[in-house]
């Protein structure tokens, strides 16, 4: 029964909201994003977290922005005007970051893992050595507010933002550092400067071919040799196996299972092509 004192809590549908990619199970999948979700889930306000998760999956969150010290988001609730959500954390200062960067630059492992999309397992040690903590221990280290009428914190809107934030961390661990005060571009530039001071960046090479007017002498001819291709992987479904599993299903069967017969058919040559003679083309080198 809905109480007459409260407005109806059904949110307005959103067309192009941010949606959690994982439709069921835990939203955060990496250890570093789980560290955040745990902080939230430790408070143990079960039903609001559930509703928050549903919000996240339905795409009620309209925007999400991570800056030094704060995450701001707009969440579509039951009212016409979206609610504003802010989750604050203390950003580290210039000097603290300068020290951290010295340590990170001295060990290429950190940059390598971060650039490969992984939070280095021992990164907390680096922060701990400077007396800092990368991850918050409890919600008390976070400031959370929402413009909705619900007085309880965290409300479902904050929870929804939290889940989407965790998912963003999954995808890009640099975001955690950005929240703590160092965005990716600045961090990488500073690390590079610490490694090899005073090197300029350069432009990307020009990709268009040479002007046609310079090619009149060999206008109809092949311009370079083509190397032979690499050995085939054992299974034609290797690409399929390497793809991120998606939550798309048809009648309970996941998409990758449905696509598998197609991939398997690709590895089987068409009957007539089975032992077709080697191709010969004008311009091929003989033999």
């Amino acid at each position, binding site marked *: 029964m809905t109480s007459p004192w409260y407005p109806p809590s059904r949110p307005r549908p959103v*067309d192009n909201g941010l949606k959690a990619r994982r439709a069921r199970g835990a939203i955060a999948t990496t250890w570093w994003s789980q560290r955040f979700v745990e902080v939230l889930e430790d408070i143990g306000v079960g039903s609001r977290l559930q509703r928050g998760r549903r919000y996240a999956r339905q795409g009620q969150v309209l925007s999400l922005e991570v800056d030094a010290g704060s995450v701001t988001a707009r969440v579509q609730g039951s009212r016409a005007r979206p609610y504003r959500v802010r989750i604050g954390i203390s950003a580290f200062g210039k000097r603290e970051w300068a020290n951290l960067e010295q340590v990170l630059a001295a060990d290429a492992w950190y940059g390598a893992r971060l650039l490969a999309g992984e939070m280095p397992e021992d990164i907390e040690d680096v922060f701990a050595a400077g007396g800092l903590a990368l991850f918050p221990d409890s919600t008390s280290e976070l400031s959370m507010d929402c413009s909705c009428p619900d007085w309880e914190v965290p409300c479902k809107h904050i929870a929804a933002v939290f889940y989407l934030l965790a998912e963003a961390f999954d995808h890009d661990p640099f975001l955690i550092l950005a929240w703590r005060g160092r965005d990716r571009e600045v961090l990488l530039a500073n690390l590079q400067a610490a490694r090899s001071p005073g090197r300029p960046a350069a432009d990307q090479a020009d990709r268009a071919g040479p002007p046609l007017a310079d090619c009149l002498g*060999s206008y109809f001819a092949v311009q370079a040799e083509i190397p032979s291709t690499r050995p085939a992987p054992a299974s034609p479904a290797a690409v399929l196996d390497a793809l991120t599993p998606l939550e798309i299903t048809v009648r309970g069967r996941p998409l990758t299972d449905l696509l598998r017969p197609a991939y398997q058919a690709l590895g089987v040559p068409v009957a007539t092509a089975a032992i077709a003679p080697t191709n010969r083309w004008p311009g091929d080198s003989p033999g």
Partner: protein
Amino acid sequence: MFVLHGFWCLRRGLCLWAEDSERPVKSPSQALRVARPHPFAAPAEVLAEIQAGKPDAAVLQLPSLRTAPLDSPELIRINLRPPARTAPALLAWAVPIVTLDAASALVVLSPRDDVRCGASLGHLGQVAAFARDLVVRGRVVPVVEQIGHGGVAYWRPVLSGRDVMVVHALIRSMPPVCRAVPGHDDPDELTRAALDALVDAAVREALPPGLQLAPLRRGRRPGVLPAVEAWLGALVGPEPRFDADPGDLGALVRALEPWDEARATQSGPARALFRLTEPGTQANEGGDTLWHLEFLLQAADDPSLMVPAAQAWDDDGSLGRWLPRPQELLLAELGRASLIYPELTPGLRQARPTGLALDAEGVHQFLTVAAPALDDAGFGVLVPSWWDRRRQLGLTVSAHTPVDGVVDRPSRFGRDQLVEFRWQLAVGDDTLTEEEIVALSATKAPLVRLRGQWVAIDPEQLRRGLAFLQREPTGAITAAELLALAAAHPDDLDTPLPVLEVQADGWLGDLLSGSPLSLSPVTVPDGFEATLRPYQQRGLSWLALLSSLGRGACLADDMGLGKTVQLLALEAVQRSDEPDAGPTLLLCPMSLVGNWQREAARFAPGLRVYAHHGPQRRRGAKLRKEIGRNDLVVTTYATATRDIDELAEHEWRRVVLDEAQAIKNALSRSAKAVGRLRAGQRVALTGTPVENRLAELWSIMNFLNPGLLGSSELFRTRYSIPVERHGLTEPAQRLRAITRPYVLRRMKTDPAIIDDLPEKIEIKQYCQLTVEQASLYQSVVDDMMDRIENTEGIERRGNVLAAMTKLKQVCNHPAQLLHDRSPVGRRSGKVIRLEEILEEILAVGDRVLCFTQFTAFAELLLPHLAARFGTDVAYLHGGTPKTRRDEMVARFQAGDGASIFLLSLKAGGTGLNLTAANHVIHLDRWWNPAVENQATDRAFRIGQTRSVQVHKFVCTGTLEERIDDLIEDKRALADLVVADGEGWLTELSTSDLRDIFALSQGAIGD
């Protein structure tokens, strides 16, 4: 002639246009501001005949003089354009085109021999072949796009590692004419668009029809399918567009985004490369040798560009020219690699990592586990070269042949005779000594130096190998079993270690090594009229040996070395040893039936030969009777395929395939048909080097020795793909070892052969008329004989000469008599035979002069041969200016340019030095042998180092054969009458002329 060109259009797909050498060169218009019609582009209706498609038009920028575009290098003109006096410039020309969608493009972009193709089509063909390659390897991902209210389902390539480099190479190699449409000149964009479209088409082509990806739905189908189901349907159907609810579709697009990213992030300007180097000779102090795994960056578009990590750390900006942010890229690559190869981590824990030190254990783990995984993930891996052709631990078999070299009596070593052998342990080619085995057993390291080279030894394997040797050190099997053991693929044997080599002494050793030098000669029976040259004698012994073992043999001697005479000798020996042996069935192209009959009659007159072909051939009981009373039944592939049910009833002594490349496609009807023939032995004769064309080799071997190379599927995965697509040498070597006992190939250039060969070999090429030629021939005879009978004097003389000319023209090609510019096609037995011979000549890289009396015939052949063989053809006739003529001769002699040189007998008969050719073909006969000999001497003169083969074409049963007989007779008497040309013929009586002109039996093929 036509030259077909192509380019890719972002909107229209594959666009084709053609140049036509028969059209006027110059444009009548002088306008330079607008795109004038290309003067010698094939017009729409002509183009439509070359290639069906949607007609359209395009403007192309082409290198041009003021009044005309330049020719593409593939275009051959009979009347040459005058040399340009001004420098060419880019001008716009309008050309008719046909356009094809991606699915048709994929089919069209395969090599074709009906029309000559420009390099632009070759390039697009490479893109199509690459698209197919990606698809077979499953390097594709399905994507969805929202267009308007509906969705479109595509398959897109997933490019990583070396594939990225192939794409870059394709982009760089694009001929400029592919980007000649103004505003569409970005090779990157055009190549990727073509690749995307062709990959999508190749997936749809590869998927079996009727494939359903979505699980079956119970109950009624809703009006609008859920977007994902509609998308799955559109991924496998012919129509990529589908309808879906926009919201539902939008959700699908977003849900699939992660896959889109997976596709996008895999190609970069460079990748990490891991290079393993051996420890230097100076071992470090502990005596413990450390290997070095070096980190580098390798450019995607230029694999030879490799930058050590240290240079990336110290970059002063110079790397930035090809690589934005090299440090970041290196770090990201190393981070990604460390996820696959966790042992990399210690090497990264420093400010500027450049490499990693590995001990023997670590090296072994890297080589066996990490390197393939890194390679699969798109990283570059460079390991010491010995690793790729590493010598593995295995077993060898040494057999002792019981009866040495006596081949005279095949019954003395039947296929059931036992051969004793001994197992031994070996590494690569080195059989291990006792001491080495002890030393290897004692060492713990997985990598050890053996005889100065590194080898990887798995202790467990070594233990199993030793246990096996103790259990069964020796054995005895039949010769056939030993040959089968030598031919077995390691995967198909149950030995504990792979069998690396099978050695034997004596004749078995000769067979296994493929050089039958010590086989004792087989005695040729009396009545065999040819004296075999020494190498032919060896070939006969080899054939007889395999025959006695019941194994198939492929005699692949170069053309002109006498495969026919060797086979006839084998038959003669067989008949004299076993008079009761059943008949041999010989299949050959129609053009060679007459040849076999004549050669058999000449060399082995004792052989009873029956030619089974033509509409009047025997059937049923009559055929059985005919087979029963002959030794050699000669038939054509086409006839054998038609009559296979009857022919397969017999148990033949031997089945012989002449020009065995006729069954190179194992799926063809004739290949399947010959597979049904039962025989005591099977023999294939071919002049093309089959060992270089794997599909052909499989098909022929599968006929000769069924099962020897496994199923075609297995062969494809074990040999064709690794060798032809990836250029691996190890499987190629194994294949050569397996087939070696069954293939005997001698080349004219072999030192063992060359001394046996005469300097000049004359071969008559007997060919038969097609039905069309025969009826034309007959009507010319009827018409001309009428006229000759009713005229006298000079007029009669003129008619006789005209009749001869017309009949020779018919023998060449119907179109030459009719002057109707009708297509060459397969209307002339002579041209068909010419193509067969040229194929063999070109396959071994030889050069050839072709003489004809008729410029019309040369001009008919010129475009046909250029298209058929995709090559330039030089042409010299009376009207060729001197400078041009000298230039052609110089290029031909220098070995570049055309391999086929067409010459008119009159223009090319004297004063030229063309010793680069070692084949001379006389396409039509001249009454005067001196003229022919003069022409032949172009190739056969000072400077010629090889033996020259002279092929004289003769249409059997026609005027040509009678001229040939006359020349032979006259030469035997003395070169009397014919010395002054053809005049003497006009003096013959009408009835003599009737005899000379008449079409006799056997002239017509089927």
